[in-house]
């Protein structure tokens, strides 16, 4: 089969990224390494899309699993990582040493996405988390607080996860990702499995920053250098959601609706917490941190629906939010570099750089859920799936949250077009404006013609459900 060889090629290319970065450490060719890494990522993305087109499904070396969900997420993350790579090229103090950590982190992320065993998952999450700490630290002492907070939190999450895996191994020593599920017939015999499930949830929700495990988010997002924040919000968090879906979704289906109330509660609490606290923020970066917490709540709406449609819509919204937040942070960090940080300081951005004002407006409108933008389609699918699963009240609470969020997004938007007028327009660096425009195009394109992406996400969602057919499913 060609597809299996392509799988090997993808894994080899992923491995090439940290190896190449190490080599780059000696060669010191900044530009060359940027182009090389971007090419590697593009190739990975295109190959994964190719596999997705054929809906290839196979395992490699027992620890990697290729199926539409992992193929889609690999492609999406690889594309988005190029944007992060470009931003780091522009903003990081020492791009070469930064890229070493970045390359390791990329490996971790893609490992999580393709994981077929709990050990791969654990290693992947660790490999993603630890280098991120150093990516923050590489930008000087003033970021040390954010780095330590992130370090402590990811260490905590990883150890919880390791403990959960150890508990599951009692029931099933193979540690395949469905181990928890395969163990579940024994669930009634002891407390260990329920405990393991709770620990899994705690570990992964901490990484995904759902309420009540979200307290680290604002400080880290605000304290970290902008491009790292964009990566944390846009990609790391989504990787945690991917892990959550991989580990939990089959279990949710297996246990029927026993899990549903918990996820509904988490989702509602996360949305309300993020949105209500964001209302009173003045620092835009911090506001976006809280906003991204609330957006995690929306993603949980689809997971709570516990249906194929719900899962597909969660995947769609994950992708949509990653695009929007990376775009928004790209503008925010550019303004941050011009010492424009609070909502009041945002006044008159329109006259300073129309592209910045226009694109931030579009990203924020998209996060509110205004058509014809990608965020609207995402929210539409999420709330549809909730209504379709007889959770009308959850959809209702979701839309109430959308209204609340209008206030703080609109404050920023209003501020940008009024007040102060700058005499001189300031251009963005070319590479930054390319990132912004790309995200803008994606936001519009999949908002107006959502068909292809919806098709891909529904393939992915269905593949997760059919991957582990639940024994005696409800």
């Amino acid at each position, binding site marked *: 089969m060609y597809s299996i060889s392509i799988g090997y090629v993808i894994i080899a290319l992923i491995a090439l990224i940290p190896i190449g970065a190490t080599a780059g450490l000696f060669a010191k060719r900044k530009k060359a390494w940027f182009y090389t890494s971007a090419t590697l990522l593009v190739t990975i993305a295109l190959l994964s899309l190719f596999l997705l087109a054929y809906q290839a499904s196979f395992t490699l070396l027992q620890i990697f699993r290729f199926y539409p969900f992992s193929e889609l997420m690999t492609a999406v993350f690889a594309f988005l990582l190029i944007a992060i790579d470009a931003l780091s090229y522009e903003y990081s103090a020492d791009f070469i040493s930064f890229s070493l950590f970045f390359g390791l982190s990329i490996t971790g992320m893609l490992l999580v996405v393709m994981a077929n065993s709990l050990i791969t998952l654990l290693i992947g999450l660790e490999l993603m988390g630890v280098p991120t700490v150093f990516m923050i630290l590489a930008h000087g002492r003033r970021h040390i607080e954010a780095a330590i907070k992130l370090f402590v939190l990811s260490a905590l999450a990883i150890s919880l996860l390791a403990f959960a895996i150890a508990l599951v191994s009692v029931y099933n020593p193979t540690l395949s990702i469905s181990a928890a599920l395969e163990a579940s017939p024994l669930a009634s015999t002891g407390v260990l499995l329920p405990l393991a499930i709770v620990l899994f949830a705690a570990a992964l929700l901490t990484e995904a920053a759902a309420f009540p495990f979200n307290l680290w988010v604002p400080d880290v997002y605000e304290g970290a250098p902008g491009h790292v924040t964009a990566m944390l919000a846009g990609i790391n968090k989504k990787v945690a959601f991917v892990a959550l879906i991989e580990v939990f979704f089959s279990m949710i289906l297996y246990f029927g609706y026993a899990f549903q109330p918990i996820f509904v509660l988490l989702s509602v609490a996360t949305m309300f917490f993020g949105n209500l606290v964001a209302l009173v923020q003045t620092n835009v970066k911090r506001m976006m941190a809280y906003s991204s917490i609330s957006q995690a709540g929306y993603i949980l709406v689809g997971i709570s629906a516990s249906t194929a449609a719900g899962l597909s819509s969660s995947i769609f919204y994950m992708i949509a939010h990653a695009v929007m937040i990376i775009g928004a942070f790209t503008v925010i960090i550019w303004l941050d570099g011009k010492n424009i940080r609070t909502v009041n300081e945002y006044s008159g951005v329109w006259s300073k750089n129309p592209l910045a004002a226009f694109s931030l407006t579009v990203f924020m409108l998209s996060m509110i*859920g*205004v*058509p014809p933008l990608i965020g609207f389609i995402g929210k539409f699918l999420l709330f549809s799936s909730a*209504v379709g699963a007889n959770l*009308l009240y959850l959809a*209702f609470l979701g839309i109430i949250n959308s209204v609340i969020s209008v206030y703080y997004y609109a404050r920023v938007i209003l501020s940008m077009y009024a007040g102060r007028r700058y005499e001189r327009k300031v251009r963005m660096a070319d590479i930054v404006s390319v990132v912004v425009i790309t995200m803008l195009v994606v936001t519009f394109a999949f908002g107006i013609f959502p068909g292809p992406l*919806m098709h891909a996400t529904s393939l992915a969602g269905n593949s997760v459900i059919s991957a582990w057919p639940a024994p005696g499913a409800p």
Partner: protein
Amino acid sequence: MQGALMLVTFLPFVFLAVALIVDKERSLAAAAISSAVSMAILIYITVFSSINATESFSYISIIPISFTLRLSPASFMLLIMSYIVLIAASIAGNHERQSQKLAASLILLLQVAASGLFLSGNLFLYFIFWDVGVVSSFFFLYSLGSPQRGPAAMKFLIYEMFASVFLLLGIITIYFGTPVHSFNIAYIAAHAASIPVASQITVFVLLAVAFLTNMGIFPLHFWLPDAYTEASTQGSMVLSAILSKFGAFGIFLLFAILPAGAELAKYIALLGGISAFYAAFLMMSHKDIKRVMSYTSIMEMGIILIGLSSLNVIGTYGAIYAMLAHGLTIALMFLAAGSMVHVFGTRDIRTLAGMVSNAKAAAYSFLLSTFAATGLPLTTGFIADLLIFIGAYSAFGILGVVPLLAIVLFGAYMYFAIEKSVLSTKKESVAVARTSNGQAFGYALLVGSILLFGMFPFLLLGLVKI
């Protein structure tokens, strides 16, 4: 003629490109031409094809959602009104000559929204065009309004977003209620009887909240006076004439789609009545001319609501005709008032004394629009009110006619106020106003349409087979 309605809807994008390329003096002309061309195509379709033309294109295959556009007598009347108002607004509305390119682009976006919304044969599209309209109106209000527009724009956005999320939730709920899940309006209307009454009521309430907020019906109207007052002349014209019809048209669809709506019709009518009286009384305590007119709008919307909830053909088409009448009238009112405000530099009615001696066109247009709003014969308002109250009488008996008193109150106040201010010759006005050609054209177009559709209602009502 497959594709003609699609052309009507998306033609403004071509003119948007034109408006952005040509110099700013001509950009508003491009917007006006766009509306005129769309109107011509629409009339051509009606005359040579059918008033019930439908078009369908595949859009999202996986759900499935098709891109369905359908013309109907109601949407035809509203579209004609929208295009006339948009032409008048683009040519005459911008006294201040500020940000003409931005204004032209927003007018063109609003044209897309209005065409798409009134033509949409699919609730999904209805929602998309609704939000396009809301967002472009928001920017209209926010970037071109008076200096105190900030809070008003924020209020507008929050209320309208509140409405639009309710709309979204209602649409999703109705989608899952239909036997074969569908957004198609014709399909839903045909199969709504099989939806359980309880869920029909849920859908009705969700959607009604959205539509009533958009119309500015008591108690969901608090955004409206501020928004209409602080917007620019063009902004007030399009907001009051076109955006408020989105909700009114929605209520019309809602009663047409859901049979269980009949049970709630009397409550909706009651809200309409309360709204009319509330606005008529509150109006009298205000001295700000634009604010008084926003209350007029709330009152008219209340009357329209009574017509729609009478649920008979006469009342319903009276309400549609009233939407047309209200659109033309309120646009003329805001246009005249805008020009007075521009000349006098204040919105206080008491300082407008002597208007008639220097700005005849504005003064007499204002007078005529007030006549039309009070339902004087030979104006559109008369036909509309007549039909509405015939419909309301047959539906609700004598109680249905009580809201006429609100119009009487409004008329009494307005005639009194106009006599004291605009028409007063006691005080010689110092301000000198020259009516430009563009403005003269705007007045002539709106006055002409009000009289034309007032004298020859069969031009439009003849399309309806009663």
